[in-house]
């Protein structure tokens, strides 16, 4: 039920009143956007821009669904960490569409290309295909060196998608933990650990010579 319908149900029908034309003309209230928590040190134009872009969406719900499926095919959950969508990657990709609009046409067009191909091959757009069909499609565009000439545009799209997904996942808390990055904390650098030096047959004494 849409929000406006809910309001109707609550306010008018509960009072036994018919919905009049005036009510119909009242626009749906915009969802209240909570101002973003801005990064420190923003210049004025950056703060204004970040505030404006916050909450803006580019993908349609259908597009976002496809982006989400693709994201989780590229980075699925495994024994060590969760999937791309669990790390919030689709929302990040959506933000990058509004932050860097040059991405919009290749991404929207690429999704369209993918759906057209899927309809031709399987009779349904990507998101409505079976899991096996989706993987069959992805296999055609995931390997630049193996793709057939009719798939090159799909390869370019999938490569772009893969880059976004990797970038989004490994800059999330989940992805950083998966990698095992343990820095970004005050510490005292005392050199490469002894066992690692030994593993690589290196030493600081030798270095001094």
């Amino acid at each position, binding site marked *: 039920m849409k929000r406006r319908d809910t309001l109707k149900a609550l306010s008018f029908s509960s009072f036994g009143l018919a919905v009049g034309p005036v009510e119909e003309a009242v626009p749906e209230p915009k969802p209240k956007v909570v101002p973003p928590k801005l*990064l*420190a*040190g923003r*210049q004025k*134009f950056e703060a204004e*821009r*970040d505030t404006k872009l*916050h909450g803006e969406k580019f993908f349609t719900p259908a597009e976002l669904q496809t982006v989400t499926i693709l994201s989780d*095919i*590229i*980075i*699925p959950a*495994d024994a*060590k*960490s969760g999937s791309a969508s669990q790390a919030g990657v689709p929302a*990040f990709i959506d*933000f*990058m569409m509004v*932050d*860097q609009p040059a991405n919009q046409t290749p991404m929207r067009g690429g999704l369209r290309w993918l759906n057209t191909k899927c309809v031709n091959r399987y009779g349904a757009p990507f998101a409505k295909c079976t899991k096996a069909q989706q993987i069959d499609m*992805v296999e055609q565009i*995931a*390997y*630049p*060196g*193996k793709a057939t000439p009719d798939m090159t545009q799909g390869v370019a799209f999938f*490569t772009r998608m*893969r*880059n976004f997904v*990797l*970038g*989004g*996942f*490994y*800059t*999330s*808390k989940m*992805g*950083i933990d*998966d*990698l*095992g*990055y*343990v*820095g*970004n*904390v*005050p*510490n*005292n*650098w*005392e050199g*490469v*650990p002894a066992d*690692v*030096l030994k593993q*690589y047959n*290196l030493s*600081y004494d030798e*270095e001094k010579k």
Partner: protein
Amino acid sequence: MDLFQIKKAPTVYDAVIVGSGAGGGMAAYMLTKAGAKVLLLEAGGYFDPADPKYITQLKWPYESPRRGASTTRPGGDFDAAWGGWDIEGEPYSSKPGAEFHWFRSRMLGGRTNHWGRISMRFGPDDFRRGSISGVGDDWPIGYDDLKPFYDRVDKLIGVFGSVENFPNEPDGIFLPPPKPRLHELMLKKAAKGIGVPVIPSRLSILTQPINKERGQCFYCHQCNRGCQAYADFSSSSVLCIPALKTGNLTLQNNAMVREVLTDQKTGLATGVSYVDTITMQEVSVQAKTVILGASTCESARLLLNSKSARFPNGLANSSGVVGKYLNDSTGASRSGFVPALMDRKRYNEDGVGGMHVFTPWWLDNKKLDFPRGYHIEYGGGMGMPGYGFGGGIEALNGKIPGRDGKMKPAGGYGAGLKDDVRRFYGAYIGMSGRGEPVPLESNYCEIDPNSVDKYGIPTLRFHYKWADAEIKQAKHMQDTFEEIIHAMGGIPMGNKPGPEQNYGLAPPGRIIHEVGAVRMGNDPNKSALNKFQQAHDVKNLFVVDAAPFVSQGDKNVTWTILASSMRTSEYIIDQVKAKSI
């Protein structure tokens, strides 16, 4: 019209300094410590790396909605430079067929807030490349003139390094250098094997405390974000803020200087006029001495825009040399992948904000087909992921056998891809050459006759082309990079840039090391400034950024800006005491 009512401030300062970067900051520090009343004008806003409202240090990529992408600033969201190559309302242009990319930081401390902290002294040969090689010009001063100031800058600001007695790489008064990281040890071993020296870096980062005002490095690798402990050198934290504490400094932020004012009778500078960038109010201020530290191109622009009946070519420009001999470092890069570093044990190797080792120029140009040298900076390690992490993996994972020893097609998806990312993490290395160009009269900036910025100030137009000497140097860099990568057992990434790409030589201005547009010299017909960076034509006008430099060596110039500005500041103090200015 109130806006055009020029507000004239009543105070006559001992000195007005334009720009708060390395040169302007040092002059402000020296003069205020000596008791002078100084006005420091900065075109951008206030910045203090220790004030939480500016701190991006120790933040995580996911604290930026774009994960630190460079959408609004070239170094990304966490970088401390406010500005970049393109600033809204402050255009510049290039002549057809030429180009120059002009990076400006509009903030207290200028570009010293985000720079690499690479702090090398020029060597004795760097001051006399003209007589050594027959191309280019000598400086009016030599290493011995600057050495005492380099020593004092080392002690005042702090720099780590090692005593090496390496030819033309003078040792300083060093703090202990950090130990090399794993990939740096491997680089050193491999490079040594092919005759390329690798020595500890020389960076202005405090590996030990040097005073009570500044803390010690805590190894987060983020100097480019500004340091809340003041453990690296920024002009904001180390020079401007201490100068403010003397009580002798008046800092005016958001002051875009329009021109240097002169007395038409005496020909002396009387102050400057500026636009308040917030209120758009025009203001003129008076000072007994005018010191420009606005940056190489901005100082040249200011002089060229300060035209009057007495100075029709612009100020300090009877020689016509202002704007000419503009030169930026050469730069070329290559990256590689080192299979031996795959599947690494994880530990924190962030280290300082830059490489722990580097390669100083090690060859004799007399035996080469290009006249100037370069140094090599190295990157690599298990760094914090940022925007774009993992991008382009399809260019690599088809070349590396999997855990089962079998090759697989490049690209891919799924659990196998995830495993590739884990295996490859920390196994990449990068290297960048930074070299000395031959300054040419034909590389210059001038006032664009057809353009003004949003303050109505005429803008710069550039004419800059790389010559054969620089292109050949870049070719040598690329050959060396591949040799080093191969010597490490690595795989060079991407294609080696060839002649059609100038061997990867970065376009002029991209390395942000530009110097030389207001050069000094002993001959007033060929130079704008004398050997104390004092205008030949206007004795109470000085330039203290890198504009006076005749050449830039194969060293990054910040340490020389600091030493030269300190020397000029003491000269000013002496001249005032002697009542000469």
